[in-house]
């Protein structure tokens, strides 16, 4: 079991409302990612679920039981911190054993659980080392090991890969996803990296300014963002926004085109521009194209794209995949990708 329900929870620090009233149902066994820019409240909400921050109002239920005022250790949750938060004076073995010792588990059981976790996380050879003698990835594994042995009803990850280098981050991302598959336990994962969110999540909650803008599967958020914020936050490189003059009977104030939905044409296109910076990634090329009266558009092209700085190119967009936003920045579903007319 590991379902978590948030009902109208809020958090204020003095007069500042960090979390505005929000509701969220986290299903048993799902991998949900809280994503959003810095300061949007995602980590605060995770800490409220953990019990490390008091909830100003509203209720938190874990497995159907009211847990708003329950101390962190009694919530049956385990947390993996950004800085690993290992006990530097203890060996890896004692770090992993710490929660079990606090729960007064029998030494034989502790030994067995440590060995099982160490095998699962490839830590067997490092059990007698201190955290200071381990690499970043190994430390993160120890932190995960310490969480696993408690057999929590849900794992809470607070930007756990932030301190790792890029290649290690990709590996650890995969390991955490595999761990989720093998444990089948609820995981709540906080990150500001939308790539991590898209690749790992069953569902993503997009935070902005203390509210959840949208909750959905990665592809739902990519294809049917509810507003400009979600549309711009999900997807890399981010969506291009083009302001348009409103027409009678059409509420569209701006269009959204993802870089991968542009087509470069030799004949007349919708927009004509001059190529600026060209980024070759091998498998694909990103062109930053300056279009008069619009600004710079990011275009994703093939890896063998021959465009160079200063070239004049024409751009069109896949009509069905253009997003339409109204004056308030809300998506107009009927006109947008995934909407009725586009289907």
């Amino acid at each position, binding site marked *: 079991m590991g379902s978590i329900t948030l009902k109208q929870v809020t958090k204020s620090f003095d007069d500042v409302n960090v979390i505005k009233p929000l509701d969220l149902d986290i299903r048993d066994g799902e991998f949900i990612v809280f994503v959003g820019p810095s300061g949007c409240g995602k980590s605060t909400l995770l800490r409220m679920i953990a019990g490390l921050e008091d909830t100003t109002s509203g209720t938190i239920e874990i497995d159907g039981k009211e847990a708003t005022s329950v101390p*962190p*250790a009694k919530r049956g949750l385990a*947390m993996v*911190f950004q800085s690993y*938060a*290992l*006990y530097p004076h203890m060996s890896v073995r004692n770090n992993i054993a710490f929660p079990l010792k606090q*729960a007064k588990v029998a030494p034989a059981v502790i030994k067995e659980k440590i060995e099982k976790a160490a095998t699962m996380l490839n830590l067997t050879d490092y059990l007698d080392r201190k955290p200071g003698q381990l690499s970043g990835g190994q430390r993160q594994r120890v932190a995960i090991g*310490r969480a696993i042995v*408690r057999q929590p009803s849900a794992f809470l990850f607070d930007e756990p890969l932030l301190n790792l280098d890029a290649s290690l981050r990709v590996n650890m991302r995969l390991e955490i996803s595999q761990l989720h598959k093998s444990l089948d336990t609820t995981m709540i994962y906080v990150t500001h990296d939308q790539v991590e969110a898209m690749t790992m999540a069953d569902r993503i909650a997009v935070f902005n300014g203390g509210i959840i803008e949208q909750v959905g599967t990665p592809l739902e958020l990519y294809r049917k963002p509810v507003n400009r914020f979600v549309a711009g936050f999900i997807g890399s490189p981010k969506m291009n926004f083009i302001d348009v003059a409103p027409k009678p009977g059409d509420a569209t104030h701006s269009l959204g085109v993802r870089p991968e939905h542009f087509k470069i044409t030799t004949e007349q296109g919708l927009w004509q521009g001059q190529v600026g910076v060209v980024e070759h990634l091998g498998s694909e090329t990103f062109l930053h194209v300056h279009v008069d009266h619009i600004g710079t558009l990011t275009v994703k092209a093939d890896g063998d794209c021959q465009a160079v700085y200063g070239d004049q190119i024409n751009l069109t967009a896949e009509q069905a995949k253009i997003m339409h936003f109204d004056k308030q920045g809300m998506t107009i579903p009927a006109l947008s990708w995934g909407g009725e007319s586009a289907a």
Partner: protein
Amino acid sequence: MATNSSNKTKVIYTLVAWTISGMIFFPILWTIITSFKTEAEAISASPSLFMFEWTLENYTQVLARSPYFDHFLNSVIISLGASIAGLLVAIPAAWSMAFVQTKRTKGLLMWMLSTKMLPPVGVLIPIYLLFRDVGLLDTRLGLVIVMTLINLPIMVWMLYTYFREIPHEILEAARMDGAGIKEEILTVLLPIALPGIASTLLLNVILAWNEAFWTLILTAAHAAPLTAFIASYSSPEGLFYAKLSAASVMAVVPILILGWFSQKQLVRGLSFGAVK
């Protein structure tokens, strides 16, 4: 050219440093030398630094006249007792100030520290009368209490500075792992902060050992530590400089040895949090 001028600067700085160190150390050196002189040589109008007849007579006389080891024991008990008692209060106080901060924490810390600027004589009479009424005059317990209280602000401040350097997340992890406040402090915080706690303990042992104002006023015979023992050799008449010097040397040597062996720890402790 640049190397030459930088070498010159280094030499000048070194000379200045040695001169200032020499000036600071000279009174101690003079006391040590005087302790090996006769009383007549000690008050000579043209005192000699090394060219005199060296004698141990002052030491034998001081040891014969006074119960040095009783005073020594009192100093050990009072300074260690006050430092340990201080730690028992300061650790939880510093923990709460470092990890459960409120808007008033900084102000409270500053207020605590400001009490160190209060002239001790300002509270002399109430403390003296209180001690007299509760029977704490001339007792080790009384001095332990006073020393604990007067050094507590410094202990809390030092420990607070140390604790602030420890990531909150480690203690939060302990909380998530099921540790109560007691386990959190004893099994996680204290082992991590051990160097800071050792520095705090050492500094307070030294401060309490050297404290003279309260020891002279609140003790007479039974609980008198080495500071009172030194003072007993100061006399308005007669020759006493050499014996006073011998008594001073005997009083400061133990703490000087302790300070010498723990100087690295002390410097680290005192500069902790100042540079990062």
